């Protein structure tokens, strides 16, 4: 079974065009929740008429209970900011491990609203916060208070009432380390605890907007219809803070990509898919077309990509009848897309091809974790000539970049004094390049290759040249993991960090990617996804939305 090569898949231009698939972490979470019969309920609601107070949402998984503790605040409009350095939010959250006691709630009330300035404990798994959508919130409260449903077109286009500006897990600000929970079956796949948190936040936000409408409209107010509730997801605003993740977790990135490419290869290998599957792929393409029509962005590059997606999908659908009659139709369809359409369309097609094949590929989503500390440590007994040979064999593309050119080293990554946040600077215009942090993988391995002597052990070499230690480690530890490294220069003047963010967010299952510059973007999570009540209902139309 042939997988698409890393030289195709691991380019930033393509990674920045990737779409959510059924292997993404949100659909995986929803499938598990449904299959395992998890019970969701609103356990506490102590929110006043001004929308201030706390609520608690529980999920009972049979063996364990988790609880989202949500705090609603009365935030003046002028304090609402998506910047990560903001200090106040419309709502703040913690996911608690178990059923919180009154003392837990009091402790969380004193800390969670402060976010980074507060401290949670190892009884908490996630810390998060969200702000209202300026456009959507007031409209929905007013409409419901007046006894009407909100404007469907607007809801479809915006897709959320609140957007999170951070979802911190893995030992941040005192919360439990990932190692503490990684053996729990419910968190076996990647980012499942974060996906659970956002799912519960969505439930809370929907209940809060109805509460505010009741406070305003009294008896006249109506709740959202079920159909309308499902149209709302949760927004998210993500910036450079997320960008280093893919570089700092190369073995995990390999797992994600390898699973996705294996899934694609399985589907492409089908010689004569049955008619039901052919109709299902066609349906997925038609849905993708409809979604592309409501995908509006201001960013010039992304707007062009969306335009390309619309015309690309139309081309595919126009040729669908003929191509789907061929032997190996999915290969034929992808080859057609590769010749005739843009990357955005090709990657959307990949997602559509995977959609009807859960029975063949969902197993690949079940074990998408990897702890980087499990990578082997440096073997200093290796000869420098062997390491050099390994670089030439497996990282040859890095050797082709001329790092003497100013444009290839134009950027540098650093930690800002503001909250230790990662930033991207311009090497020749800003101070601080001597403190850059190590995301320059291609440059460093290129320089390591040039510096390695013909003879001697790696241990001796690294003793004299410790600056190459990380590069040597990556060559040794990752040379057999084809999808571990991004095949692009992360210092290049043409770098668009949003491509790295888009890739990671597509694995989350995000939609409506909306770059606001080349270094931050907004997205929507769980739009049209089942609600908690749907997951618990036996007759739920579950599969149609995920």
């Amino acid at each position, binding site marked *: 079974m042939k997988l698409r090569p890393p030289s195709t898949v691991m380019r930033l231009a393509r990674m920045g065009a990737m779409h959510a698939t059924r292997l993404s972490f949100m659909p995986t979470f929803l499938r598990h929740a449904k299959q395992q019969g998890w019970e969701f309920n609103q356990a506490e609601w102590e929110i006043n008429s001004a929308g201030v107070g706390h609520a608690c949402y529980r999920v009972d998984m049979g063996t364990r209970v988790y609880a989202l503790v949500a705090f609603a605040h009365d935030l003046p409009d002028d304090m609402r900011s*998506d*910047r*990560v*350095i903001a200090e106040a939010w419309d709502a703040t959250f913690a996911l608690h491990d178990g059923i919180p006691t009154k003392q837990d709630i009091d402790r969380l009330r004193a800390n969670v609203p402060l976010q980074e300035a507060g401290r949670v*404990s*190892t009884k908490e798994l996630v810390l998060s916060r969200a702000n209202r959508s300026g456009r959507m919130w007031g409209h929905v409260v007013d409409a419901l208070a007046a006894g009407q449903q909100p404007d469907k077109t607007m809801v479809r286009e915006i897709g959320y009432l609140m957007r999170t500006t951070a979802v911190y897990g*893995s*030992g*941040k600000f*005192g*919360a439990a*380390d990932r*190692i503490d929970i990684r053996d729990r079956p419910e968190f076996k796949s990647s980012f499942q605890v974060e996906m659970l948190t956002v799912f519960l936040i969505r439930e809370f936000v929907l209940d809060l907007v109805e509460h505010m409408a009741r406070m305003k409209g009294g008896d006249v107010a109506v709740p959202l219809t079920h159909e309308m509730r499902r149209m709302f997801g949760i927004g998210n*605003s*993500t*910036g*450079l803070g*997320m960008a280093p993740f893919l570089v700092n977790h190369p073995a995990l990135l390999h797992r994600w990509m390898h699973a996705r490419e294996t899934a694609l290869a399985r589907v492409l290998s089908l010689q004569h898919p049955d008619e039901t599957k052919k109709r299902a792929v066609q349906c997925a393409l038609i849905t993708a077309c409809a979604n592309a029509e409501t995908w509006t962005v201001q960013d010039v590059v992304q707007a062009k990509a969306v335009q390309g997606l619309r015309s690309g999908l139309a081309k595919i659908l126009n040729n669908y009848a003929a191509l789907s009659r061929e032997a190996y139709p999915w290969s034929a369809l992808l080859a057609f897309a590769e010749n005739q359409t843009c990357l955005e369309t090709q990657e959307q097609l990949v997602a559509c091809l995977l959609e009807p094949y859960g029975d063949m590929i969902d197993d690949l989503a079940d074990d998408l974790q990897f702890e980087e*500390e499990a990578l082997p*440590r*440096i*073997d*200093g007994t290796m000869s420098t000539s062997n390491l050099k040979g390994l670089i030439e064999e497996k990282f040859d593309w890095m050797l082709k970049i001329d790092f003497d050119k100013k444009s290839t080293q134009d950027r540098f990554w*650093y*930690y*800002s*004094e*503001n909250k*230790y946040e990662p*930033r*991207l*600077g*311009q090497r020749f*215009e*800003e*101070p*601080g390049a001597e*403190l850059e*942090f*190590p995301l320059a993988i291609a440059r460093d391995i290129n320089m390591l290759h040039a510096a390695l002597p013909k003879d001697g*052990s*790696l*241990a001796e070499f*690294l*003793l004299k*040249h*410790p*600056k*190459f*230690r*990380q*590069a*040597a480690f990556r060559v040794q530890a990752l040379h057999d993991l084809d999808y571990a490294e991004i095949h692009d220069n992360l210092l290049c003047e043409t770098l668009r960090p949003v491509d790295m963010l888009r890739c990671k967010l597509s694995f989350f299952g995000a939609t409506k990617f909306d770059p*606001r*510059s*080349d*270094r*931050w*973007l*907004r997205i929507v999570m769980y739009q049209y996804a089942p609600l908690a009540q749907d997951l618990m209902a036996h007759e739920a139309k579950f599969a149609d939305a995920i």
Partner: protein
Amino acid sequence: MLTRSEILSTCKNAARGAGFSWGMASEAAIATLALIEAGEDGFGPLIEILNHAKGKEHPLNIEPGAPICGLTLGVYLADLGAAPKPLPQGIVGLQILTALTTELSKGAARPDAFPPEVLEFAAGVLVPESELSRRQGAGEG
């Protein structure tokens, strides 16, 4: 209680702030955490090493006779998968060397806070945010 990831990231930044390369800094952080999880003092030997390394040219000299950096020698020995016996005298932060070259027990409670010296060293990796960076959208999201 400090989390493992907080200890790893802060100690890594501290070692980088003292002048070690990122690869060496990562080893320093892993060794410090290993000592702490074994119920030993991890920050003390780390601080000794960072004070010893601060302001010196890197790589640090490990010739016998002069004080030897326990991180530098420990990493070298771990790379070779061997620990020589006996070790030379005058190793700075010997416990870090031990953590790098032997398997320690785990499960001890972690401290509640970092010593101020570790935080001071860690601040050495921070760059003041430029107006250019902010204008281009850094900090959003």
